[in-house]
């Protein structure tokens, strides 16, 4: 069968699936879905269908991005639009199957929205929801919609048409098309992809390597994983186009071993490509020959750095090496090489499936197209979103993300993972593009977007991210290995309340040295969280050092718990729950925290009944309490008096 015949077949199969007279159920089975219990939901759906004797088609799809609402199930009933249901449990899905498929009640209470033409009363259109409306899904175009384990579904949705288009162009024309699209590397550094390809293309020699960097290691980032799990072919097609353009004969996908599902999807995809003559020698009957291997990384963050990644593929210790020579000159096994990120490759295939002008209409002057962000932290709707470049930080958090959890105050957002920096509320209007972020002291990075609320101490946050980079430093160059440790020591000192006034200067001096002299960008960007928090939250550092106060009440060494004598009911709950017996008192006697013994675990505060709220957490403050338990004087809260007594006795 020729590819064209296969394509026609795939399209007719896809159309038959869409127009099937059987219900079609799509279950989000990416890692996020599985973690939320999608496997149990899927099993229940199958059981229910069997029990009710309904014949339905089930497709396991990737993540559509609404991770906060997983497990997600979409149901397409003949003649009805596709309805997305979220936050399902085996119990609710059981009801849903019976009620919707048998009784034709679409259960608007469980629905997220409809997808596609037509509407259902009481259910909004998904694309019009605040989370979806600002999004432009280019690299994630198929995620959540097609079966990632079926190449035909990818082909039916325009898959590999980009490759066919590219193969009809000259190599230079392909590179020019990429340059024209303005695509920049989505892995962090933001180098122009067309420029990188041209450097590789220029190199003489018949052995060149193309590498896909899927060693996603930022805490809180999962763009690449989701893409590989949801639509591996879009990445692989991008690599084929790159192989043709640059004249590369071999490729590697360096994927961390902690992504077993992504690796499984890639393996399946490669097998199918082999069958369809899309990989190996004389691809689709042309002169293009390209072999691709999956290399599993052992989970070192530094292996995301391209030279360390290549060392790791070579079987050496993953440590960066100096540049020049650049990978395009001497990369993997000393041969000309090019490394692009997963998301970049998926964008390449999208650009060729349409064209460069279409792609370049999105984004800003210097940052074209869209960027995927992994929304995490204290934001209402965590998940994966793809937005056009130039959208503001505030829009991502408040529109797409739905604001801060529990309506708390926004404190900061950390972009770019541990190499990035924290942006304060004053930067909520900052457009998200490579240059604006760099100017603000942070980086685009690979797309981590961690939101912090008022309960997050910025010094502690900087300390956390530095402890990560310090652990993950490869240990090769002096500034990164030793410098980050000293910075971490200083930050730990500050969060313990032992900071010196000179520490801020010392931190800044160390940060400058490390940034300017480190061998690779792990060290070069490691001080960013500290530098940006010093820039935007300097007063918090000063409070920690001078007043020994943590305004977020997060640094345990700087906080104290007190029981307010005018509120304590002497109910004994906190006293009994204290793990270190640091609370003294008796029934109907005001309890007192023994500050010497207290380990600041906060249990007393958690267990004190809300209507008493007698336990407070303070920093750099003393609250006057009696030296020993005295009889309770506070009047009991008017309501639920009996409850309080009961709780106390039953506890």
């Amino acid at each position, binding site marked *: 069968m020729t590819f064209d015949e296969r394509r026609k077949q795939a399209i007719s199969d896809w159309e038959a699936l869409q127009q099937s007279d059987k219900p079609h159920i799509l279950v989000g089975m990416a890692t996020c879905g599985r973690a939320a219990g999608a496997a149990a939901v899927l099993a229940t759906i199958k059981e229910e269908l069997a029990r009710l004797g309904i014949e339905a088609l089930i497709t396991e799809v990737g993540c559509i991005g609404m991770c906060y609402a997983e497990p997600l199930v979409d149901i397409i009933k003949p003649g009805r639009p596709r309805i997305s249901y979220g936050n399902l449990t085996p119990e609710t899905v059981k009801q849903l199957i019976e009620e919707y498929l048998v009784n034709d009640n679409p259960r608007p209470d469980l629905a997220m929205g409809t997808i596609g033409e037509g509407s259902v009363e009481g259910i909004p259109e998904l694309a019009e929801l605040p989370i979806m409306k600002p999004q432009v899904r280019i690299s994630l175009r198929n995620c959540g919609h097609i079966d990632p384990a079926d190449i035909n579904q990818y082909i039916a949705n325009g898959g590999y048409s980009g490759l066919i288009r590219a193969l009809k162009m000259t190599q230079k024309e392909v590179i020019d098309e990429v340059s024209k699209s303005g695509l920049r590397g989505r892995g962090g550094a933001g180098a122009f992809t067309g420029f990188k390809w041209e450097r590789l293309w220029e190199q003489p020699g018949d052995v060149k390597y193309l590498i896909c960097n899927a060693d996603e290691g930022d805490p809180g980032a999962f763009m690449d994983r989701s893409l590989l799990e949801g639509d591996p072919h879009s990445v692989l097609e991008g690599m084929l186009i790159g192989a043709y353009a640059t004249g590369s004969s071999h490729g590697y996908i360096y994927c961390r071993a902690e992504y077993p599902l992504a690796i499984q999807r890639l393996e399946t995809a490669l097998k199918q490509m082999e069958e369809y003559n899309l990989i190996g020698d004389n691809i689709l009957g042309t002169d293009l020959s390209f072999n691709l291997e999956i290399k599993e990384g052992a989970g*070192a963050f*530094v292996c995301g750095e391209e030279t360390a990644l290549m060392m790791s593929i070579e079987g050496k*210790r993953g*440590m960066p*090496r*100096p*540049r*020049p*020579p650049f990978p395009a000159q001497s990369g993997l096994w000393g041969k000309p090489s090019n490394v692009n990120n997963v998301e970049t490759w998926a964008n390449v295939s999208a650009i060729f499936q349409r064209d460069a002008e279409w792609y370049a209409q999105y984004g800003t002057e210097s940052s074209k197209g869209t960027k995927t962000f992994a929304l995490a932290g204290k934001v209402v709707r965590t998940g994966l979103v793809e937005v056009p470049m130039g959208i503001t930080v505030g829009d991502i958090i408040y529109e797409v993300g739905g604001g801060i959890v529990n309506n708390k105050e926004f404190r900061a957002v950390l972009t770019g993972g541990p190499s990035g920096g924290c942006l304060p509320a004053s930067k909520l209007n900052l457009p998200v593009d490579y240059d604006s972020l760099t100017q603000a002291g942070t980086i685009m990075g690979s797309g981590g977007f961690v939101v912090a609320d008022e309960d997050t101490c910025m010094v502690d946050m900087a300390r956390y991210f530095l402890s990560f980079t*310090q*652990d*993950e*430093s*490869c*240990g*090769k*160059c*002096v*500034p990164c*290995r*030793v*410098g*980050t*440790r*000293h910075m971490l*020591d200083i930050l730990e000192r500050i969060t313990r309340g032992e900071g010196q006034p000179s520490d801020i200067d*010392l931190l800044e*001096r*160390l940060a*400058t*040295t490390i940034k*300017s*002299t*480190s*061998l690779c960008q792990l060290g070069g960007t490691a001080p960013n969280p500290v530098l940006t928090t010093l820039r935007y939250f300097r007063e918090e550092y000063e409070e920690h050092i001078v007043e020994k106060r943590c305004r977020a009440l997060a640094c345990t060494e700087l906080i104290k718990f007190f029981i307010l004598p005018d509120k304590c009911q002497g109910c004994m709950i906190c006293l009994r729950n204290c793990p270190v017996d640091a609370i003294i008192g008796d029934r109907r006697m005001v309890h007192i925290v023994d500050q010497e013994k207290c380990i600041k675990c906060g249990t007393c505060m958690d267990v004190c009944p809300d209507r008493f709220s007698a336990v407070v957490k303070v920093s750099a403050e003393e609250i006057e309490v009696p030296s020993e338990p005295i009889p309770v004087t506070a009047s009991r809260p008017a309501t639920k008096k009996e409850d309080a007594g009961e709780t106390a006795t039953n506890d």
Partner: protein
Amino acid sequence: MGEITLTIDGQEIEVDTGVTVLGAAQQAGIYIPTLCYHPDLTPYGACRLCLVEIENMRGLPASCATPATNGMVVRTKTPQLQEFRRGVLELMLSEHPHPCLTCWRRERCGPFDICLRSVDITQRCVTCPKNGTCELQEVVDYIGIENVELPSTLRGLPIDRENPFFERDYNLCILCGRCVRVCQEVRGVGAIAFTSRGSETLPGTAFGHALRDSDCRYCGACVDVCPTGALIERRRKYEGLPDTRVTTTCPYCGVGCQLELELKDGHIMEVLPLRDNDVNHGQACVKGRFGITEVVHHPDRLTTPLIKKNGKFEGATWDEALELIASKLSGFKKNEVVVISSAKCTNEDNYVVQKFTRTGFGHNNVDHCARL
């Protein structure tokens, strides 16, 4: 004349293609501090001391790894660079004992002097076997560090004394990686590599096993390239600096490795393989590197030929011995003689032996012990 012209610190320099910026500077006599760089090893770029400014190049490239190109304009000593070097060196010193390194009296102190600042003996340069030849000292002296503001975070590791040849004191290690690279790249052994990561990183064997259980051949190449006192030959540890150096050929085999003997009071302190020769290029084996000192000064070593008289060996001169051999050989027919030589002799000696056999006796019955 070179093919590439570049400017370093305002000086125009011509070099051949493939020379690094550091190489070009060295050719022109411009000093750039280095610690991880070694001429026999591939560039590594870890110590960050050889950073330079190059026009139209982003950041501060490491001169040891950057190839010189035509028209390059390089600056090696701007105040900013020196400041960064000081910063990096200060970080390095925060892990390495440094009270003496930053003390102005260092050169005046002897190993047995009482330190006026009561510095711990394990932290003093003057008691370090590398004192005077330490490359870290040289760099500190060049950059000039009077005070290390950062807290000292010494590793507090025990010294590894499990092998008879050299000691491994990783408290003094600056992780330049020379030992790891020489073992891998030059010796092709790879007995040691970096272990752990982050600030825990140290050179070591696989799974922390003893060297004797690793692939180590005790060639001592790691000891020779170590810039600090981390790897030190045990025998010379407290001997101080040599008063004489003698170049010689290794007597252990026919390869003819060129060695430099460091002597003090007529005794060999240490044997170092010579770099500038076509035979061993700075390498030696365990016998040549560590075996000579003991053998040469061993009381049992034969220093003159012995002739058996009345059933007992007695010392003799070479003339007497040769005379005796000649007189005995003349009593045999030519084909009654077989000549056995030693593989420990030099090629030249063995050449003479076979020449002697073939011309003197007219046959090929000559061999040496390595074939037995």
